[in-house]
């Protein structure tokens, strides 16, 4: 994310500095969180992938908790409703072990069952490939049997798209990521568009929003094709189209992604992530 200024804890932006792209999308996501929502946040890896999968989602849910959704909660890793007011300062195991939470079910099946019985409202997903119908691939690039790039597998991403009503995809805009058709459908989004998802036997749902560093996208209700919802401040339509290897639905008029409010920026910078652990890169 080239223009996302990387700042250290020492020079965290004051409340008057303009919003970074991470802050911008965090505020957009926060507004999608409703009071009472249970959000599934994955455990992520490191670097930028951590920011996308963990940092932005946790910051957004915490922001929503503080502003309009006090009873919104997350299931993070093994922790149901971890205390988002004290996110661990590092990723070492013992920091996770000591993170206080409402519950830490001993059997991972508890979380799987909650997914399958549709107990979650929102989830966050990154992927190596996203196609125009919002199908995701985190399994393999190229031929599945002898792939060009073997990725991590599946985790619970198929469950997210099968069972969570409002999945939010969080990825950076890139032609290699946004492909016409994913090489391997790990998570079934809107499948082949139209009613194909329901015809495959899945319940209504599928990806709801695609949050990127350049634009926010959603899906056209009938065709289920990816559609541009808003462009981030200073980003042109051409820049966005250039970073997609398929043609999305382009509305006649596209609004600009609303900037975070001063209050939102202040909470993110001063209260939620003062050490820039979550929105570091």
């Amino acid at each position: 994310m080239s223009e996302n200024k990387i700042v250290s804890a020492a020079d965290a932006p004051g409340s008057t500095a303009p919003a970074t792209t991470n802050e911008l999308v965090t505020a957009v996501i926060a507004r999608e969180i409703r009071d009472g929502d249970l959000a599934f946040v994955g455990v992520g890896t490191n670097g930028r992938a951590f920011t996308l999968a963990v940092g932005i989602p946790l910051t957004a849910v915490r922001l929503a908790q503080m502003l309009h959704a006090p009873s919104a909660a997350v299931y993070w890793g093994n922790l149901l409703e971890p205390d988002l007011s004290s996110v661990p300062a590092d990723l070492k195991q013992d920091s996770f072990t000591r993170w206080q939470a409402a519950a830490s079910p001993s059997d991972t099946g508890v979380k799987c069952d909650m997914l399958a019985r549709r107990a979650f409202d929102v989830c966050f997903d990154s992927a190596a490939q996203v196609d125009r119908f919002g199908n995701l691939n985190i399994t393999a690039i190229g031929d599945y049997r002898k792939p060009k790039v073997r990725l991590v597998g599946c985790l619970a991403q198929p469950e997210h798209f099968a069972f969570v009503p409002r999945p939010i995809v969080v990825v950076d805009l890139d032609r290699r990521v946004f492909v016409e058709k994913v090489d391997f459908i790990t998570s079934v989004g809107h499948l082949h568009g139209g009613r194909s998802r329901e015809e495959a036997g899945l319940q209504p749902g599928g990806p709801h929003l695609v949050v990127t560093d350049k634009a926010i996208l959603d899906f056209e209700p009938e065709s289920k094709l990816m559609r541009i919802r808003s462009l981030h401040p200073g980003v042109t339509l051409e820049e966005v189209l250039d970073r997609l290897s398929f043609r999305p639905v382009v509305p006649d008029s596209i609004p600009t992604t609303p900037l975070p409010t001063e209050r939102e920026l202040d909470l993110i910078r001063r209260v939620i992530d003062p050490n820039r652990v979550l929105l570091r890169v």
Partner: protein
Amino acid sequence: MKEKLVSLEDALAPVTSGSTIAIGGSLLRRQPNAAIRSLIRRGVTDLTVQTWAATTATDMLAAAGALRRYEGIYTGMFSYGLAPNFRRAVESGAIEVRDFSETAMVARFRAATQGLAFLPIKTLLGSDIADKNPEQIRPFSCPFTGEKLQAVAAATSDFTIVHGYVGDKYGNVQWPIVRDSDDIDQMIASAGKRVIVTVEKIIPHEEIKKRPTLTYIPGNWVEAIVEVPYGAHPVSVDAMYDEDDAHLTDYLERSRSAAGAAAYLDEYARAIPSHSAYIAKVGGLSALNRLDVQPNELNHV
């Protein structure tokens, strides 16, 4: 009760080339790495593995060329990125891969636990996970509603290898009160035919008996138990010690090439006669003690 406390080598002796093994642990927690190094040392190969979120154990087996087939939900190195040796072997076509999502893999272990050939899910409708694996994921209709469902085949294995916290000589394994969880290990153990458990510490049966609700793997399910301190090194045992960042970084650095990974295994697995020799090799207990975490006042391990 039957005494099941044996040496690591004796515990693993029945595991031979061609076996199917279920491996416990999740991400950088409780990977049964000491047991895996012992299998590599002995040259066991042609394995089918079933895993949850796999990291070092599966990646070392891949580096050793010991994996024929893999079935699981994830293989990577968690906060350290992709799993280099597993990735290389899969990309070369050397490992047959069958991917499963979390509910699917849970259903597979539960089916084995429940003595059933399958359990139903509805997660993978329309996905390539199902499309590429008609052998283990089959469509069928709900006998009540007629809705589309998928039957996933039970995860039956020859051996199950997990690394636990503390146990007694009868094979009863207990967890700490405050711990990380995501605990697939109880599920994997309950699904197992022949369960081999390594633990950080053997404690008296009298201690186990005082708090039977903390036993997550009953000795009754266990064929052999082995005391292997720091048996998950270089990953962590939550509530006991953290991952060894320097060692993991070195492993990943050397694993950038197949030759580098082979040299790593020569040094840390093949040329090492025992787990105690491994401990000496990585700097002895004094070095490992530095990974220890502060005990939680509520725990009794």
